[in-house]
């Protein structure tokens, strides 16, 4: 049976060879290199990524000869490169797409570099800057355990552990910082274009409605009663007058206006809900196991909505309103275009190292004084640069993007890079930027979130915590970004007796530094972590068994530290367990009622952009993968769980470290200082001896995560390169 299935598998693979050849997991041919300029800021060059194309590489010179400009003189000045259809002689690894007057031309990488273009990758093996291959001092590539999984996740080929995914499974991880590969978006464009079910959806009606009211429990029953009452009255009026049209009936029976409006509105909402269901069905979000009953706003619908939201990077609760409703009302070509635009944004950011995304406090755009003595507004470089790329590649509208995709084959995304000329960066972009972090804790409550009677105490925060990155240029502090973040609050902790208590987890105020940045970090749970969150049941090889919840520990997008983390140290080198890191718990970052354990969480995509920018614009040492071999056992519900964490992640050491200031914020409530130690959780029972000893609680087993091991690496500090010449030259990437 195994042999038969294997043979069938092989046949399938042979039949789809061109598709599977674009598999990003396919290792590159040895010895090939991807021409890529050194990042001017970081002082170290990313490893030359080998191309994935199977063709033998040609030298840049040979390739240039093969594709000399050849357009006939009668058609005006010769266009660079060759037409797409004539590019067969250029190895895929050497091809660069350049759109000239709407025509897709192929250049060699040497030609693109000579003409001063930057390269933006549309390849399926793209990774953000923090996961790009890095070399040690001898030029050997340093292994990065998470890069392969990142690519597998973006291509819907793997789960978070690196296990293969079934063909019909989708990851939808953009809200967690992993945008889909362009090949996946290509598939969405092509498949949606051919789906008949989309034509049966009334998108106009969907787009006219801003929300569908979701009711549950008592309010749902009350609504049903009222509807039945009004419907009865309306039906009676219809019978009496012989008028079936509700608008006409309203004129004829003005006393029944309220009942008629109620019935009409309820009917409309039902129609909208039907269209929503059709939209979710057509988009393959209504999984049978969700058990959704048509016409019901039930948990099954919420689960389908959650998939839809994740697919389209919507940070909302699973309600039919806001951005969710707006996106449901868009035709697939529009939503797919937005998906493409967002995916390209991350690639442009990785290619250029820009960070400013138009976020700042207040409404007035901040300015800085340039070398010319004039005021310059802070630009939204992320948007500017992305727009430039979309326009130049010819994918800046939904229709153009669809046409672009229709001209492609899946295999193209195995090699496709595009030549783009980006706008000039602001003058404060320097190889080594004077960067510093400021965290405003916003409104801070030290009081416990419950009263002495054990009731919940309202602690609504108006001013939420904010993360700012500044650069100092010509004596001015220029704020580059202003993002939502988190601070610590009251969290459950396990004491030595195995019982859970509350502890106030501080986000310490004052000056700190970030010395280490770890890409794909693992989180070592302190012994105070509630163990229920570290163990789970999972089907393994056909049987449910206990497994350690490695998703929480990482490396991975769901881990406590997200995709990348910067580690705080006090001035004397101490580690209080506080980090600024990515987080999959995006609602905790947006909520006025949610807190971290003291760390400052960022949206994963913000953290990825942020540390990519910092690593490119600061002196640093690339330490590589830091072996840890952490091993620990714990007991949970009658079984032992053996935690094994082999690596701490891929580490960079900043030299000099990055200064951080944590502002106290706005102290609210009665307490001026946090309560130290553990506090019993109201209404929870504890062992007798702790209840009688007169103290609040036994000591916590361990105060915080053990400090990260010191930088023992002997890897060299990579020097800052000289300032680039004042030209149009930008950071290069593919």
């Amino acid at each position, binding site marked *: 049976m*195994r*042999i038969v*299935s*294997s*043979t069938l*598998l*092989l*046949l399938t*693979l*042979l039949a789809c*060879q061109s598709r*599977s*050849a674009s*598999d990003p*997991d*396919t*290792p590159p041919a040895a010895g090939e290199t991807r021409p890529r300029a050194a990042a001017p800021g970081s002082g170290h060059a990313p490893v030359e990524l080998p191309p994935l194309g199977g063709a033998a590489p040609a030298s840049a010179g040979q390739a240039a000869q093969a594709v000399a400009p050849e357009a006939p003189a009668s058609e005006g000045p010769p266009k660079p490169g060759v037409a797409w259809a004539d590019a067969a002689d250029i190895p895929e690894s050497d091809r660069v797409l350049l759109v000239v007057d709407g025509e897709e031309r192929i250049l060699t990488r040497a030609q693109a570099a000579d003409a001063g273009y930057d390269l933006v990758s549309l390849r399926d093996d793209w990774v953000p800057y923090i996961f790009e291959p890095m070399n040690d001092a001898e030029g050997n590539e340093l292994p990065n*355990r998470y890069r*392969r999984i990142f690519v597998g996740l973006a291509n819907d*080929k*793997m*789960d978070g*552990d*690196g*296990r*293969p995914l*079934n063909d019909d499974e989708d990851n939808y991880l953009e809200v967690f910082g992993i945008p889909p590969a362009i090949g996946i978006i290509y598939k969405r464009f092509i498949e949606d274009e051919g789906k008949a079910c989309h034509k049966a959806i009334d998108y106009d009606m969907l787009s006219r409605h801003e929300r569908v009211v979701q009711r549950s429990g008592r309010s749902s029953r009350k609504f049903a009663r009222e509807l039945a009452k009004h419907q009865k009255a309306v039906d009676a009026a219809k019978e009496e007058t012989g008028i079936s049209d509700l608008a006409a009936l309203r004129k004829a029976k003005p006393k029944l206006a309220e009942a008629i409006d109620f019935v009409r509105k309820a009917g409309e909402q039902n129609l909208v809900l039907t269209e929503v269901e059709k939209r979710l069905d057509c988009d393959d979000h209504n999984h049978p196991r969700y058990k959704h009953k048509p016409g019901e706003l039930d948990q099954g619908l919420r689960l389908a909505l959650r998939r839809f939201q994740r697919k389209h990077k919507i940070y909302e609760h699973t309600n039919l309103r806001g951005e969710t409703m707006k996106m449901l009302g868009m035709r697939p070509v529009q939503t797919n275009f937005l998906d493409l635009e967002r995916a390209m944004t991350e690639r442009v950011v990785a290619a250029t190292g820009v960070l400013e995304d138009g976020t700042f406090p207040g409404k007035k755009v901040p300015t800085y004084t340039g070398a010319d003595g004039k005021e310059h507004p802070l630009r939204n470089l992320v948007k500017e640069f992305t727009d430039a790329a979309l326009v130049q590649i010819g994918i800046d509208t939904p229709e153009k993007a669809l046409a672009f995709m229709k001209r492609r084959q899946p295999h193209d995304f195995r090699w496709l890079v595009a030549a783009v000329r980006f706008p000039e960066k602001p003058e404060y972009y320097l190889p080594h930027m004077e960067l510093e972090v400021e965290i405003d804790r916003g409104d801070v409550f030290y009081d416990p979130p419950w009263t002495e009677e054990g009731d919940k105490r309202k602690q609504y925060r108006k001013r939420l915590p904010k993360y700012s990155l500044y650069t100092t240029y010509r004596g001015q502090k220029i704020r580059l970004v202003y993002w939502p973040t988190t601070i610590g609050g009251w969290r459950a902790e*396990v004491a030595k*007796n*195995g*019982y859970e208590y509350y502890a106030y987890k501080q986000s310490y105020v004052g000056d700190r530094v970030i010395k280490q940045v770890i890409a794909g970090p693992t989180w070592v749970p302190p*012994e105070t972590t509630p*163990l229920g969150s570290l*163990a789970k049941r*999972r*089907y*393994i*090889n*056909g*049987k449910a*068994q*206990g*497994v*350690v919840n*490695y998703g929480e520990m990482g490396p991975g997008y769901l881990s406590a530290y997200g995709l990348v983390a910067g580690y705080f140290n006090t001035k004397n080198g101490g580690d209080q367990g506080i980090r600024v890191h990515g987080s999959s718990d995006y609602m905790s970052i947006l909520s006025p009622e949610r807190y971290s354990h003291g760390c400052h969480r960022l949206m994963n995509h913000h953290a990825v952009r942020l540390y990519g920018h910092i690593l490119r614009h600061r002196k640093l040492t690339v330490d590589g993968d830091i072996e840890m071999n952490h091993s*620990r*056992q*714990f*007991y*949970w519900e*009658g*079984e*032992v*769980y*053996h935690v*094994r964490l*082999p690596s701490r992640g891929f580490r960079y050491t900043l030299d000099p470290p990055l200064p951080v200031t944590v502002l106290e914020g706005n102290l609210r409530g009665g307490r001026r200082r946090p309560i130290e130690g553990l506090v019993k959780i109201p209404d929870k*029972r504890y*062992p007798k001896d702790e209840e009688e000893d007169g103290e609040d609680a036994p000591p916590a*087993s361990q105060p915080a995560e053990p400090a990260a091991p010191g930088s023992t690496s002997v890897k060299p500090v990579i020097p800052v390169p000289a300032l680039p010449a004042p030209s149009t030259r930008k950071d290069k990437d593919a």
Partner: protein
Amino acid sequence: MKLLLALGLLLLVPLAVTAQDAGVDDGDDEAAADAGTAKKAIEHVKLQFNSSPSGAEVWYGKKLLGTTPVTVTRRKDSGPVDVVFKLGGYLKVNSRGYTWADDKIHVKMTPVDQASTLLGYKKPLETSPDEESDLDADDDR
């Protein structure tokens, strides 16, 4: 068509045998195989499971891999292998082997009556006679 079938058999029979010898159900690995990886030599890694005391059964889902010490091979980078160690009189231990390189997994088994020595063990709550009478009173109401 026949040629393709023959080619398929030639290429994949050795793979299947390797997987059986390894003692690990590699079905998911095969599903992951693609044309790119089928063309090149497939790398494998060794996972050595050991325990103290030895003699524990190592289960991978519903498949018994063997009793410790036991070594299995697995395709490199095919994802982690979550296993359960079972030994009479001892608590079950859930552990994991990694496949990005050869891996040695050593597990300390804890006798059932020594569960209290482990992190996370909760002392059972004692009910005082007073509380018992209170509860009775509640029941009466």
